[in-house]
């Protein structure tokens, strides 16, 4: 459906994306994930046709689209700040693209009403000026405006970043449901790993303009391909050489001593696992505890490492700082780079 082939994007002397190769399937919810300035928005804007690559080609539906004007690519875009036209009403905003295409008035009204219903905008809201709407409602208008032209691809540039946490979670689900319902190929840009993991079919993790790994959310999280992906996605414990040495001595023979080792917080247990297990016990001292409601995070000093562990609420008596603790670690959970 979409293919970036050896795409290089530069701004004067500065190369933002050196060599991008990426394939996105039809109907897929594909996320470009990475920290600020990593090139993910540049990649999206290049796909939208706002930036012309200095080298390489972009294919849409098997056809070269590299130098095709953005309006001819059949892409709809939702901008980070929504980019709603402040001098127009909600209805006029949504109908803008139809008006450009000289769609008949009656048909325009019908299409606007249809899409408004899909994104849950009421007729009263359609009559309002965009400035009278809340952030969440404005975001729906931006989505409706992008979708009313029935594009083959929907591009979303951090569309939830301006919303409060609760609304973000709510809209995340609605957006995913809408995408599934319409079956539209969607490319989503975010720096929020949780957003990427919960919404995407596949994720490309960007770092300094380079794609570090492409995979499903599970692959990205559990089988991080590079050290950057491993540390960027989710919280991690970095294990000291002494801890690795202890694990190797007590049965973790598969672990390499010379590599950098990481362990996810939820892979550390403070209670002896039941039944047959490869978990290795390490002794330590509780250095601190932070309470998060549904769980607590304990920091245990052990063999030169401060190892954090997640304990669900109700998962045993709270340990006090300074008290002795036992850590149980399965060496196969350790990621090494």
């Amino acid at each position: 459906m979409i293919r970036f082939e050896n795409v290089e994007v530069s701004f004067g002397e500065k190369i933002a994306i050196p060599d991008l190769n990426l394939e996105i399937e039809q109907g897929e919810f594909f996320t470009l994930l990475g920290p600020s300035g990593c090139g993910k928005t540049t990649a999206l804007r290049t796909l939208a046709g706002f930036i012309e690559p200095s080298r390489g080609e972009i294919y849409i539906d098997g056809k070269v689209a590299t130098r095709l004007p953005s309006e001819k690519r059949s892409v709809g875009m939702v901008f980070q700040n929504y980019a709603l036209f402040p001098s127009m009403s909600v209805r006029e905003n949504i109908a803008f693209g139809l008006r450009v295409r000289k769609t008949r008035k009656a048909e325009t009204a019908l299409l606007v009403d249809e899409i408004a219903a899909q994104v849950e905008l009421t007729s009263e809201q359609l009559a309002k000026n965009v400035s009278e709407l809340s952030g969440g409602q404005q975001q729906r208008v931006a989505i409706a405006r992008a979708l009313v032209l029935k594009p083959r691809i929907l591009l979303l540039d951090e569309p939830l970043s301006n919303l409060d946490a609760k609304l973000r979670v709510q809209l995340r689900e609605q957006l995913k449901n809408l995408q599934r319902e319409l079956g539209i190929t969607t490319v989503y840009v975010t720096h929020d790993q949780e957003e990427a993991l919960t919404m995407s079919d596949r994720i490309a993790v960007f770092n300094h303009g380079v794609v570090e790994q492409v995979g499903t959310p599970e692959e990205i999280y559990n089988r991080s391909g590079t050290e950057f992906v491993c540390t960027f996605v989710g919280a991690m414990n970095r294990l000291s050489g002494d801890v690795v040495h202890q694990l190797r001595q007590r049965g973790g023979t598969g672990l390499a001593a010379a590599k950098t080792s990481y362990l996810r917080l939820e892979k550390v247990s403070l209670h002896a696992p039941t039944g047959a297990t490869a978990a290795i016990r390490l002794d330590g001292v509780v250095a601190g505890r932070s309470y998060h409601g549904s769980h607590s995070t304990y920091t245990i000093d052990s063999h030169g490492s401060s190892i954090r562990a997640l304990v669900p609420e109700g998962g045993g008596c709270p340990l006090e700082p300074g008290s002795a603790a036992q850590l149980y670690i399965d060496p196969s959970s350790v990621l090494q780079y």
Partner: protein
Amino acid sequence: MRNSSWASMFRSPFVVIVSLVTLWFVATFLVFPNANLLISTFLPQGQFSFRAIDKLVSSERAMNSLWHSFALAATLAVTVNVVGIFIVLVTDYFKIRGARMLWLGYATTLIYGGIVLAAGYNFIYGRYGFVTNAVRNWFPEIDPNWFSGYFAVVVVMTLATTTNHMLFLGSSLAKIDYQTIEAARNMGASTMSILWRIVLPALRPMIFAVTVLTFLTGLGALTAPLVLGGTDFQTIAPMILTFSKSTGSRDLAALLAVILGLATIVLLAMMNRVEKSGVYFSVAKVATPLQKQRIPNRFANAAVHVAAYVLFVVYATPVLLIVLFSFLQSSAILTGSITWGDFTLDNYATVFGTPAVLRPFVVSVVYSALASAIVVGGMLFVSRVLQKHRNPVTTMLEYLLHIPWILPTILIALALVMTFDRPNAMVGGQVLTGTTSLLLIAYVIVKVPFTLRLLKAAFASVPESLEDAARILGAGSMFTLRKVLVPLILPTAAAITALNFNSLLDDYDAAVFLYHPLYQPLGVAIKASTEGENNVDSMSITFVYTVLLMIIMGFTMYLVYGRGGSSTRRRKRRAGTVTVK
């Protein structure tokens, strides 16, 4: 702003047309006339010559005018700062009773200035002025020309030029972080110590900027020296006007204009350098709005109050008298004694009932309206192209369009007169000097930099994503401009049009060089009314013109600043901050 190669820029027919028209305008009206002025000064017969300089050095009047101009500029740099800073402090910094009323009194110069103000003072304090006549009824030995020469010019220009302080210094003062004042007070600093050590140093860059502007105003002063300077105190600008009237001394006029232009360029360059060195209003991430300071010393407080109200009377009296005199019979003004029977509506009836009398007013309104509409309409396209395409061609074009900002209006006017007094191929072989169009062209030229700068800023303030959104929805650049961008910058464009209209309405500097004898603009008519002894009737007419101008200008200022200002006040009040204006 986006970078774009100029090859890609010229793909659009819209950009090509705008660029070609702009290049023609710049070459024909900005570069060529001023280059022609330099050539006629230093290369009169095709060879470099010091003849104009020799003439200047040997002309006592010309050399005196140079000395007078610099003396006036230097004096104003001091007097305007003293009065201007005092005004800003009493209206915006100290807790003074009736500060809002005081501000309105001081702000009267926002709605009347230039030739109108000079003529107003002349009609009140001048040789035939009401106050002079009234005082001479009691003390006949008083010199009727007491309000004339250097003293009168300095007084009038000092009062007229404090508007820069009110607008710019007042705004800078509001940006000072109040927490710095609280911190100083917390460490035991007194009110005066805070003013000298915290507030004024923070305002230093802006004080420097307004000083430069004041100096430039003094240097290029035309109307005040012309109306009130008398024979003994003439400055560069009136001399340029005098010398330009004779073909034999035009090179001298051109040289004086060049000197004025050079001085302006040097001073503006200095100002730019100081601006670049940085301003230091606040380094706080969350600045606290300034709160008014009480003057703790009772005597100092009383003295400041008295001084503030005396200054208010000085500012407000001419305005009140002008309004009053516009309803008086001419004879009453002349004799200096007023009775109830002298009040009349005849002056207004004459202005509105006599086409020949109303004509200068209509001419000025038409010129100002046309020039404002043309310059805003044209710059709308130019600023769009300059804002969207950034490359060496557009950068050069932008610099060239700022030429009128660094050249005094009289230099521009003189250059136009001297360039288009013969058929010129760049304007289709036409002679423009002496036609009605040259003044319109001059008005458009002088308003280009201000209009361009503000419109470009307005375009730049529109988020780029709006254009991207329109583009991805299939809108072309013209459709996007028409339907998305123009509606957004329309309020700014309307405000610029109104401000341009206001400032051109009573223009004298360009009009006196370029007006068509059959279409005398208001500035020229008002100046004419101040000449000679038999000006009694025209004096009354001028009072009516002035009142009408003040109404129009006051209304425009309210439309541009007033309504926005009141909503800002409401917002600030809601936020619990202290404001005065």
